[in-house]
């Protein structure tokens, strides 16, 4: 397996370091028009008028486009169809789009935007999800303002709690987290003379964008072509919302018959794009004297915002992950996604699981403490292993590396070896978390769980391939090129990935849920079958050996039994072309079946799971409450690391994003639902100065259905950091923080209250 497991240098990396990669903001087309989005000034209200009469004297102003201008349906289809492209009569959140202005330049578009007069009659809105739930008068969604209610019912919780030696019950809360990808959202819409529409932009899911644009412009899917440009980070924030941005550009483009560019300002992006759902969690769990997790009862509420968008599936994932990676036979979970008059929340690395895992893993430490047991030992006794059945009734037949990740971090971190290190006002603490992640869309997005790929070998032995999933920085392009090179026996440099484009492969679903490597990798292996067979056949003729004895690797074919007998693949491919043998292949991969019963929460929700453990070592200043993180060890079972350096970089990046979630990141809304800190100076993400020593550890328990044993894991590094930090703070100074972020002030107050 020459190239698999090798840290080759990033495909397309040279363009990145020389500043050449084309991001959407770099696109210039002749006759390009610029637009700017008109947004609701209130959280809830009725639109009375949108008046652009004072713009008509602005030179270069091209017009106002609103819900009334839409030729098709005013809807952004996601899970349900409740979100409009532009609010028509009623606005439901502060910053909701109600139209766009178009102009000859960006500056003119912004001048026009400032002159537009929007008259809205403000109505009372629902800001607090706990009040919105079942509100008697104000109905935002259905009868009770609940987008989705999910459940898990297993065993008998009540009698199980009676057997417990220790029971811990508490409420946990987590705030909005902002993706803060460094490249803002943006799209270019380019109408072609034949009536079709091309869309270029920063996105994770070109097929979502295509569906939305087709719906809004009343075009058949065949007439919309979506091409992903280099994408400057996504983390879930470019999953569903780019559909909105694309439609905002496509509508004026279609009506003006000119290309339109729309790049979001940073504050506009932070105000109006999706975020991690704020959550409220009430969690009760109990363990018996021998250290067995016996019962879990929890209520998990997420604030969905004004439209359902991805909330139902975010809730699904959160619910599946609400028991952590442990065996537990008595479980009673109710989870709810609630409608409020705030910006719709959506996908963010972890997808509903980091919030609930903050509660799960805090509870695990508190149970261990109650039992006077080492938290690592308590987890050891309860962690799932191969052959076990999960709390939702799924038998895990293979590849459960949870325990190994735990042992690895314990070994590497100097776990709880803190006595000699405490000095002055500082106290050292260690905190542990063990988490898991269901890879792929699972039963929540079953109909989308397939993907296509295409491989084309050229006469000079260079190769292009296309997939329907996207690279937003995570490294998919490199890893997939490694897979293709390995399958065809060619050097890595020969392989080029084409930009992801809806016209190249069939609808392959979204690039989310850590699914790209597994799904597109498998589809590519299938796509390589035909060209690979041609290469092996021709090699066997040239080498005069049987086909099964031919080995191909890095541009050479040779005899398995006699390495001296060689021929270059270049020569083989030339011959194949001469003989008109097939050197192109298509691949289509469907995942094995998944299932979920929404009434009982029993089923096989995901095809496989990734596993991880983290240990955070930190120091707390007992005078100020300030936390200094010293070291984070983070071990992940990824099945197989196709490119270990990139796996490490994913771990480090996710850990730091998780550290932001733990310590500083908090998007705040005022009582009227307006977001208060939509900028990097007030929404604080980690900088280089905040980074402790990080030790990424790779564990490999191969996933039999994955390409070379690999499975996705890219979200997981973020997921367990916040509870590990909370546990470390508790270990250091004995105070338990249950609402994120864990600020110095909260610790200081808790220390004073002690």
């Amino acid at each position, binding site marked *: 397996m020459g190239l698999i497991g090798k*840290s080759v*240098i*990033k495909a397309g*990396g*040279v*363009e*990145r*370091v*020389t*500043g*050449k*990669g*084309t*991001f959407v*903001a*770099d696109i210039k087309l002749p006759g390009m028009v610029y637009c700017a989005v008109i947004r609701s000034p209130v959280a809830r209200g009725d639109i009375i008028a949108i008046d652009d009469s004072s713009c008509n004297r602005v030179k270069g102003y091209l017009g106002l486009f609103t819900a009334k201008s839409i030729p098709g349906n005013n809807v952004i289809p996601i899970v349900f169809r409740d979100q409009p492209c532009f609010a028509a009569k009623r606005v439901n959140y502060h910053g909701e789009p109600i139209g766009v202005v178009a102009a000859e330049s960006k500056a003119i578009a912004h001048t026009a935007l400032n002159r537009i007069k929007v008259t809205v009659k403000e109505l009372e809105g629902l800001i607090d999800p706990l009040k919105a739930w079942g509100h008697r008068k104000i109905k935002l969604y259905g009868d009770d303002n609940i987008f989705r209610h999910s459940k898990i019912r297993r065993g008998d919780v009540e009698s199980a709690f009676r057997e417990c030696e220790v029971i811990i019950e508490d409420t946990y809360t987590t705030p909005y987290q902002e*993706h*803060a*990808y*460094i*490249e*803002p959202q943006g799209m270019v819409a380019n109408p072609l003379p034949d009536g079709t529409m091309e869309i270029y932009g920063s996105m994770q899911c070109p097929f979502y964008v295509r569906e939305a644009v087709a719906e809004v412009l009343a075009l058949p899917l065949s007439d919309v072509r979506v091409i992903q440009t*280099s*994408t*400057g*980070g996504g*983390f879930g924030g470019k999953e569903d919302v780019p559909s909105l941005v694309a439609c905002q550009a496509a509508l004026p483009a279609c009506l003006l018959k000119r290309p339109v560019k729309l790049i979001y*300002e*940073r504050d506009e992006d932070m105000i109006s794009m999706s975020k991690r759902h704020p959550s409220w969690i009430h969690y009760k769990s109990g363990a018996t004297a021998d250290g067995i997790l016996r019962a879990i009862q929890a209520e998990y509420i997420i604030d969905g915002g004004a439209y359902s968008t991805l909330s139902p599936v975010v809730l699904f994932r959160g619910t599946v992950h609400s028991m952590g990676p442990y065996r537990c036979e008595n479980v009673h979970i109710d989870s709810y996604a609630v409608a409020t008059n705030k910006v719709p929340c959506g996908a963010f690395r972890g997808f509903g699981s980091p919030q609930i895992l903050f509660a799960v893993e805090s509870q695990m430490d508190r149970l261990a403490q109650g039992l006077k047991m080492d938290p690592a030992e308590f987890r050891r006794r309860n962690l799932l292993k191969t052959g076990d059945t999960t709390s939702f009734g799924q038998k895990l037949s293979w590849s459960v590396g949870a325990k190994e990740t735990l042992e690895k971090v314990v070994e590497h971190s100097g776990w709880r070896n803190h006595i000699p290190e405490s000095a002055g006002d500082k106290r050292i603490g260690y905190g542990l978390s063990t988490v898991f992640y269901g890879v792929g869309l699972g039963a929540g997005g079953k109909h989308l769980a397939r993907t296509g790929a295409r491989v084309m070998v050229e006469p000079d032995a260079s190769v292009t391939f296309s997939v329907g999933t996207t690279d*937003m*920085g*995570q*490294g998919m392009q490199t890893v997939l090129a490694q897979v293709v090179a390995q399958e065809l026996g060619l050097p890595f440099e020969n392989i080029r990935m084409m930009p992801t484009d809806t016209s190249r492969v069939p609808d392959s679903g979204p690039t989310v849920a850590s699914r790209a490597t597994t799904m597109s990798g498998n589809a590519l292996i299938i796509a390589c079958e035909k060209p690979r067979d041609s290469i092996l056949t021709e090699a066997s003729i040239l080498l005069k050996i049987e086909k099964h004895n031919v080995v191909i690797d890095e541009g050479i074919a040779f005899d398995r039994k006699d390495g001296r007998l060689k021929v270059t693949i270049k020569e083989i491919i030339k011959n194949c072309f001469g003989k008109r043998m097939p050197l192109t292949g298509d691949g289509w991969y469907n995942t094995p079946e998944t299932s979920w019963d929404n009434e009982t929460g029993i089923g096989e929700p995901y095809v496989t799971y990734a596993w991880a453990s983290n240990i955070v070592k930190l120091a707390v200043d007992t005078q100020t409450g300030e936390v200094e993180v010293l070291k984070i060890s983070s071990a992940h079972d990824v099945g197989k690391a196709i490119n270990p*350096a*990139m796996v*490490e*970089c994913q*771990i*480090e*990046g*996710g*850990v*730091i*994003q998780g550290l932001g979630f733990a310590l500083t990141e908090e998007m705040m809304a005022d009582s009227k639902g307006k977001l208060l800190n939509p*900028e*990097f*100076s007030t929404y604080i*993400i*980690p*900088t*280089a*100065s905040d*980074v402790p020593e*990080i030790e990424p550890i790779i564990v490999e328990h191969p996933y039999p259905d994955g390409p070379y044993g690999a499975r996705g894991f890219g979200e997981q590094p973020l997921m367990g950091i916040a509870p590990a930090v909370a546990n470390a703070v508790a270990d250091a100074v004995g105070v338990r923080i249950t609402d994120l972020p864990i600020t110095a002030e909260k610790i200081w107050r808790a220390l004073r209250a002690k």
Partner: protein
Amino acid sequence: MKIKFRLNGRLINADIPGGMRLIDLLREDFNLTGTREGCGKGECGACTVLLDGKPVNSCLVLAAQLKGRAMVTIEGLSDGDTLDPVQRAFLEATAVQCGFCSPGLILAAKSLLDKYPDPSEEQIKRAISGNLCRCTGYSKVFKAIKMASETHRNSK
């Protein structure tokens, strides 16, 4: 307003509208799109360029301030196809994910290494603390800068 300045080594004479931002001059007039805009407010560092060797946020600088000065953008760092050691180190250390921040980080690192060829971990962190990266978690960026510093020293 007519001004003269050096851009990536070339002497430029340009007529610049008064209120124009440096980043717009680079991206719109010179098509140097490696200078990226992440916030437009001096908060992310994606628009970093070197002005007389020092990193500045080009979204906060007026183009007119270029007068008589020498500027280097990411496009001016490599010599044809030969990458600068800092660029090469970023690739070899896997310090690039989406790459939107990379030009800014690389220029900030370049300026640091020109001044301190053998920087401490603290100096590295301080030098790039104005350049936000949301993907990599910075560890491999530190590694890249250390690698570049070694190449730099060994080549002397």
